[in-house]
């Protein structure tokens, strides 16, 4: 058997099928000085795919701030690394698995989790938390329910088995994702700061070692699939989706960490997209060395595999390592203990070339420098998104009363409880989850002490955020808001935000308006990262998220990580009981443009999104964090989707206690619905005991930060200033109802 393409001539027509343009095909021939073999064409096409080469996005990604005194490793490695003190480092990244999840939701999502876990533990970290950011189509679309069920089961099926808690995430529904859901998975790991493992190969003659699962024919050309639009035939691409084995992944984690405790490893990288090709090319390329592989030594799950198939396979749960000379026996013993395959499949050379041999024949011989240096790089044309008019607070009349609108919002698909989802994820395994899903604006996981004497008091705060409807309306403001909201969510727990990972999900970059969205979001993100000292340390780009020409909403998902010195001081959003004062931090202006109230209650998606004042964002957040650190705050919640009243309702539901609300000073002139449902940024609700309230208001005043009393907690209902009252129990029931009811309906 010679594989699917074995009988075809290797020509421009085949190159086009592999996703290479005429110009790129010309470049391949020029680099080689001859026509490529099938295996060589496969290697060029995946390395030059959008997914692996970032050819459309690189020029923009370079403009993001990536440095801070606490950044140990920024973008360019398998994951980002930050110093979190006490000799410890947090290692994290978020990555998309959008296309596979649409074709085969369970395995697509499961292998997305597996892949991001490997990106993190390959750097020497024990994974301690998973998060995700999910976008699905219109709930009424016939496909949505099955996609939600499959993706959630897949994320749970993988994460639960490997034993890493899934502690947080976000979910949106919008018709723009009907044909192209987004599955973005994030892993956070912990490593000793002086024991980070990198991917650059070194040491001429050093052995190249393959460990993990055997190679099969699954996922061949997955990276190419991830670099094309979907058409009506996407169903036929099902065979290119890989199958995950979380049990093997768990063994691989333990085996790798056991070997990493020794000094056997020079470099290590997981075989992710484009498998053996990208790992060997990138490791040798980064190290400036050559590499020779003997494919006969690769552990194989199927018979008769060709060199092309082995180099392009995306079989899961595999790693490539460069070992120190003489370390093979020690390493082999560790992998045999964990019953994993271990094979020396090649060695490093001084030729600067990758040479692939199979059955005595050279199947590929490519100079590495031009493969990476001459990879295509496009500055694609951009078209700026036209500015939308600002909607005045009174521009849209309220079609229903405030209480009724609150009930409708709190039970709507984008705001209802995510319990049906997170209860399918083991969010407690490892025993260190201090703030569980929905308990706080960011998840809090307690860390082991560096000396191994137990855990705490330090912890990490983690969140995923973006508001795609803002990004569509104004990419620059939307990009800013995504970063600011991640920063705000971490701040609201009392933790100090340190760095982000970004997962840029966009449509076809060859369309100027899409490239304009991408460029705009990057500009906004960069401004926010700089203003908030919140650099980007890792990320992933997923383009061509279009089906039959329709693009998704621009979705730059942000994964934020922060540190808190004592997890006992972390605050959640649940009202702590009766007798607390409620305080609004930040100015109410009644911004209804792009709000959920406008969409869900008034049935309109329009207006400019709320702007982010980054100086005010930072000032407000630093006050909130200081008040929490001083132990003055009982509960804290940021104001986001749905506005102030939705935030208050969420706090009441979580705490099982009501509140009597007043109109905050300075907001008397606003229309009622604009005050309660406006989505202006940089704001928080605090619940404080009476004496700390005085302190907090005085501190805000001294700093020039708008702060106003919002009412008092108590009773079993949320009572509005006009006297209308909604029981907390009815809010809770409505909030909890939608997702389980939706998911239990028959197809």
């Amino acid at each position: 058997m010679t594989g699917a393409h074995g009988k075809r001539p290797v020509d421009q027509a085949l190159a086009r099928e592999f996703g290479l343009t005429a110009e790129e095909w010309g470049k391949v021939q020029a680099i080689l000085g001859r026509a490529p073999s099938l295996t060589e064409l496969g290697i060029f096409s995946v390395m030059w795919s959008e997914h692996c080469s970032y050819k459309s996005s690189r020029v923009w990604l370079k403009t993001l701030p990536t440095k801070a005194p606490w950044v140990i490793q920024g973008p360019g490695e398998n994951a980002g690394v930050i110093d979190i003190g006490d000799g410890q480092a947090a290692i994290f990244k978020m990555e998309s698995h959008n296309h596979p999840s649409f074709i085969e939701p369970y395995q697509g999502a499961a292998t997305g989790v597996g892949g991001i876990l490997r990106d993190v533990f390959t750097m020497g970290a024990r994974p301690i938390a998973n998060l995700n950011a999910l976008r699905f189509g219109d709930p009424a679309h016939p496909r949505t329910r099955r996609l939600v069920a499959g993706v959630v089961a897949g994320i749970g099926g993988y994460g639960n088995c490997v034993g890493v808690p899934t502690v947080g995430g976000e979910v949106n529904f919008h018709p723009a994702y009907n044909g192209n859901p987004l599955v973005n998975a994030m892993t956070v790991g912990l490593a000793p700061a002086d024991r980070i493992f990198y991917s650059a190969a070194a040491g001429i003659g050093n052995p190249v070692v393959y460990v993990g699962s055997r190679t099969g024919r699954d996922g061949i050309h997955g990276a190419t699939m991830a670099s094309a639009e979907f058409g009506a035939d996407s169903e036929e691409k099902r065979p290119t989706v890989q199958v995950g084995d979380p049990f093997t992944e768990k063994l691989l984690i333990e085996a790798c960490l056991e070997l990493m405790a020794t000094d056997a490893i020079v470099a290590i990288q997981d075989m992710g997209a484009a498998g053996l090709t990208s790992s060997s090319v990138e490791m040798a390329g980064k190290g400036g060395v050559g590499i020779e592989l003997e494919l006969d030594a690769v552990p194989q799950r199927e018979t008769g595999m060709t060199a092309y198939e082995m180099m392009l396979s995306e079989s899961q749960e595999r790693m490539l390592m460069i070992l120190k000379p003489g370390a093979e026996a020690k390493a082999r013993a560790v992998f045999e203990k964990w019953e994993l395959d271990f094979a020396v499949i090649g060695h490093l050379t001084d030729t600067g070339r990758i040479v692939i041999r199979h059955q005595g024949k050279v199947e590929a011989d490519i100079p590495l420098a031009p493969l990476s240096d001459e990879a295509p790089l496009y500055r694609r044309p951009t078209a700026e998104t036209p500015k939308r008019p600002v909607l005045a607070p009174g521009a849209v009349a309220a079609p229903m009363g405030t209480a009724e609108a609150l009930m409708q919002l709190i039970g709507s698909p984008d705001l209802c409880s995510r319990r049906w989802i997170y209860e399918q994820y083991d969010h407690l395994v490892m025993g260190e989850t201090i703030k569980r899903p929905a308990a706080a604006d960011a998840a809090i996981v307690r860390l082991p002490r560096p000396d191994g004497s137990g855990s705490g008091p330090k912890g990490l705060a983690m969140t995923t955020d973006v508001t795609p409807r803002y990004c569509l309306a104004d990419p620059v403001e939307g990009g800013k808001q995504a970063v600011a909201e991640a920063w705000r969510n971490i701040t609201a727990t009392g933790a100090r935000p340190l760095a982000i990972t970004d997962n840029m999900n966009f449509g076809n970059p060859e369309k100027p308006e899409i490239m304009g969205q991408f460029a705009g979001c990057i500009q906004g993100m960069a401004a926010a990262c700089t203003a908030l000292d919140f650099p980007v340390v890792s990320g992933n780009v997923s383009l061509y998220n279009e089906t039959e020409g329709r693009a998704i909403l621009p979705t730059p998902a942000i994964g934020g990580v922060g540190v808190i010195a004592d997890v006992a001081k972390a605050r959640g959003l649940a009202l702590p009981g009766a007798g607390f004062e409620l305080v609004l931090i930040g100015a109410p202006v009644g911004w209804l443009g792009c709000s959920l109230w406008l969409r869900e209650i008034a049935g309109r998606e329009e207006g400019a999104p709320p702007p982010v004042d980054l100086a005010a964002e930072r000032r407000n957040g630093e006050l909130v964090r200081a008040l929490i650190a001083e132990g003055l705050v009982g509960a804290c919640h940021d104001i986001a989707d749905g506005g102030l009243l939705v935030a208050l309702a969420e706090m009441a539901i979580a705490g099982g206690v009501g509140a009597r609300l007043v109109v905050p000073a300075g907001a008397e002139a606003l229309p009622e619905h604009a005050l309660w449902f406006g989505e202006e940024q940089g704001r928080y609700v605090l619940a404080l005991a009476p004496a700390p309230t005085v302190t907090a208001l005085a501190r805000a005043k001294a700093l020039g930060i708008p702060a106003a009393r919002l009412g008092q907690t108590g009773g079993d209902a949320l009572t509005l200033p006009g006297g209308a009252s909604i029981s907390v129990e009815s809010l809770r029931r409505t909030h909890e109802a939608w997702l389980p009811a939706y998911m239990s309906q028959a197809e």
Partner: protein
Amino acid sequence: MKAVVVVFPGTNREMDAAAALQRATGRKPGIVWHRDTELPAGTDLVLLPGGFSYGDYLRCGAMAALSPVMRAVKAHAERGGAVLGICNGFQVLCETGLLPGALLRNASLKFVCKDVFLRVEETQSLFTRGYRQGQIIRVPTAHGDGNYFADEATLDRLEGEGRVAFRYVTADGRTVPEANVNGAARNISGILSGNRRVLGMMPHPEDHTDPLQGCTDGLPMFTAMAEALA
């Protein structure tokens, strides 16, 4: 108390179990590997923790039950040694035959991770003597296959011999279907062996042993074991 935690390939709550034991005893437990053929001398308690042993690809706990270390655990139990199996550990104990019955797929067909309420049905054991009879405790569950099943005669015998240790109930103690998180027969969440020195249970008391975990209702089980086996 000399405690050991058994690690199979795919076990993933060994750290949780070890931390709970350490909170109760002040000492780290020993770790025993699935290929070990004997337990450390002087072992008082064997804890089989949660996870997906051998991937649970055959039937939960079935492969682990055949592993070398389980011969030693079985001999330990037959000598009257104490064994606590939590979640996957409970499944292993049923597959080994140290406890009767089996754990089937959850009635919902979904994995479920949430806090549940248990009523302590039996305080006459070294695991449960730290609780009051009828006390209601809150502990997390995290499993896909926790639906306890046994034939009616076995269930009657377990009840008659006071071997039902815990039952799923509501917060106010009602034994109703809504409280039954996985569809278990008679809301059973944990059972004892005939000599009352082997306990298997689906929920995770080890994850509620520290105030920062949100609750310490699981801690009395670990302190009771430490006292009884001191």
